[in-house]
């Protein structure tokens, strides 16, 4: 069992099931409401989740995911906040600054799921040339590298406020990043000081061709997990959809009713349908195979409540999962080592 077995919950609209909004009777405006977002995030924190993730797509009706994470930062105190930010067509300089801002607003609880959507419709929105999947991974990899350099471009002690020389900044501790990639270059330094975590944890889909700190995989099989680790990810988290028994209604029957409105084809990821005890057992088993699991509840309004009522407390009791502690960073609560600044050595 990992010392830092993480449990995250994906907060996507009404839930992972395509009929979730219909079933819950929620309109577009209700799903976009700030109060709706805040209520689920607080529920996730109360339940003891390590982190909440905020999906996004440059083509979907959602509030910008970075802003969602930022908005809930002052309303939470321990929960990791991990937005998707797309990086194939967006400006890497803006994305790096925005994520660092979330990290400051949350006192070190931000993460980044690297979006690698290369849909040509997005290219047209940005007025850039569309790229194919392979080039998309290369561009996104460059965007991650730029962000990492920018986050390091201010050393932690760059602000000196020296009243003998009247210098606010020690310019020797602020660095140009001089990134030259195939499709863009970025001079730097960052416009925002080094974020509280130093390096914000980077999450990538293991199949995206982009490597980060944490790989999101769809199978807990030894081969899949090893492949992700071999590719360079320090941690591996499993994606898992869940539909739990609730209010006397078996999970399978709930899904059946929802499927009648719109079928749940899923994202090619594993799914658990059943009672809370079974999920507790499954997660305990998974804690020996992966470093974390990201749950995609079928209907947020229903399954999130069940998870908080019957699943996470039991995992806590058995020592499988420990809720994050106020005052710790996301890096700490998921088990990443403290980050070392790549530029600091030059001046050491």
């Amino acid at each position: 069992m990992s010392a830092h077995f993480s449990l995250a919950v994906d907060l996507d609209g009404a839930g992972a099931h395509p009929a979730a909004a219909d079933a819950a009777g929620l309109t577009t405006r209700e799903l976009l409401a700030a109060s709706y977002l805040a209520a689920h995030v607080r529920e996730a924190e109360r339940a003891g989740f390590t982190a909440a993730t905020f999906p996004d797509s440059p083509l979907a009706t959602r509030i910008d995911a970075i802003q969602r994470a930022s908005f809930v930062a002052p309303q939470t105190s321990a929960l990791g906040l991990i937005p998707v930010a797309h990086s194939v067509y967006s400006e890497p300089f803006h994305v790096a600054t925005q994520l660092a801002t979330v990290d400051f607003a949350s006192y070190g609880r931000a993460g980044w799921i690297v979006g690698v959507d290369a849909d040509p419709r997005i290219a047209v929105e940005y007025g850039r040339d569309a790229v194919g999947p392979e080039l998309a991974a290369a561009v996104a990899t460059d965007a991650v590298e730029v962000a990492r350099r920018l986050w390091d471009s201010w050393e932690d002690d760059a602000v000196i406020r020296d009243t003998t020389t009247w210098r606010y900044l020690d310019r020797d501790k602020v660095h140009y990043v001089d990134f030259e990639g195939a499709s863009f270059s970025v001079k730097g330094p960052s416009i925002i000081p080094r974020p509280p975590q130093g390096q914000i944890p980077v999450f990538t889909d293991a199949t995206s061709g982009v490597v980060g700190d944490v790989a999101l995989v769809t199978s807990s099989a030894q081969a899949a997990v090893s492949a992700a680790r071999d590719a360079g990810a320090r941690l591996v988290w499993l994606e898992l959809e869940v539909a739990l028994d609730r209010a006397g209604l078996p999970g399978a029957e709930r899904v059946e009713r929802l499927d009648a409105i719109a079928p749940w084809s899923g994202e090619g990821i594993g799914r658990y349908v059943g009672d809370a005890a079974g999920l507790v057992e499954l997660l305990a088993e998974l804690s020996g195979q992966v470093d974390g699991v990201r749950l995609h509840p079928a209907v947020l309004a229903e399954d999130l409540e069940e998870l908080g009522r019957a699943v996470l407390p039991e995992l806590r009791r058995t020592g499988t999962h420990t809720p994050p502690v106020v005052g710790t960073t996301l890096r700490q609560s998921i088990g990443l080592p403290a980050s070392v600044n790549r530029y600091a050595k030059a001046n050491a």
Partner: protein
Amino acid sequence: MSATQPQERNQIQFGVFFQGVNFSTIWTEPESGSQIDFESFRRVAQTAERGLFAAFFLGEGLRLREHLGKLHDLDVAGRPDAQTQLAALAAVTSKIGLVATQNATYNDPFDLAHRLQSLDLLSGGRAAWNVVTTDNAWTGANFRRGGYLDHADRYTHAEQVVETVRAIWDSWDDADGSARLVARDFGAFDVRGVGRLPRSPQEHPVLFQAGDSDEGRDFAARSAEVIFSAHGQFEAASAFAADIRRRTALAGRPADDLKIFPGQQFVLADTEAEAHEKALWVREKQITPATALAFLENIWGTSLADYDPDGPLPDIDPVVEVTGETRGAGFRAKKSKETADAWREQAAAENLSIREFVFKVGGRLEGGIIGSYQQVADLLARYADEHIVDGFNISPFLIPSGLDDIVDRLVPELQERGVYPTEYRGDTLREHLGLRPPLTRRGEPGDAARQTPSFDLV
């Protein structure tokens, strides 16, 4: 307090600018707090809201400032992303407007429109966009397109971006959640897509603009809803108001359609003498000996480290013909030799040292409003009575405590005189400012565009 206070007196409002750059923010004192800790921003925003301020305003940083080819190290530096920070502040405030400065050159129109609308929805209709424009390749070095825009085209481009962003906001159909296609050609690139979000309770984020050239003023008169200015002193403000209202009317809008908010610093105390004493202190702290030299170096183009800040202006001539653009808009493209000669002449005539001279010409407090609470309240009442401004955008010289005396002492004086609001007029920034509906949504009564969508679910 007085039961006979006038009810119909014209009012002014306040906004606050959390600057994050420039030497107007004093960083040397014990009460100089963190410039990046979220708590500083929360404190300023919540203090402003306690004082019924209309808006909290953030600048945008796209490149860290440089001085003589190196990173500028004397001023406060390092700031958050404006919209991301405002999204967090939306959670800890409930009324105050949230104004994000966003560059029209280095933000992509669809992305910009979406993020502004996200902020507007999250905040329940309190977002605003302060549109600025840049053309220089120096800033472009952090962005994919680099310095793609000609200087002459920057306002045309910015206006086209504003038009495009509004079209994206308008593309959403409230009836069925569908969206019309928006396609625009910007020359260097073209964009095509649809809006992804419904409009907020204020329909569009409010549009602020700050350009002061003829071109900038005309752009504001055609497109903006609030204009910032540097003209805070009474006569200058009066002339500016007349000019702006004339231009606004010429653009086919009601003359009061564009609200006027000069940037302003206030130094206040119980008595006039104390206020002036405090102003001297502020000036000393803002313009350190090193800052005074750097101010001249920016014109001279070379290090003046060997000159005594308390001695006369340098006798050598500038080594550059025009000043660069790496220190922000205030220094852009001044003719160096001409400026140096004029400055030397003035300093000699008035017998000023380098630092004294910079106090005079570069001081952030020149044009600032200094006086006792009562005096300043009386003065601002005159601004209100003459209606030469709609409000002031205040730059506090201390973070995070710089608004405390304004909110605790000046605001009540103004309220007693009936020239400052005693409550928020509504929930949206558009309501606080008394603005009409967005320019593109003013159909005839009965037009679909005129119908107010239902927001009870938001």
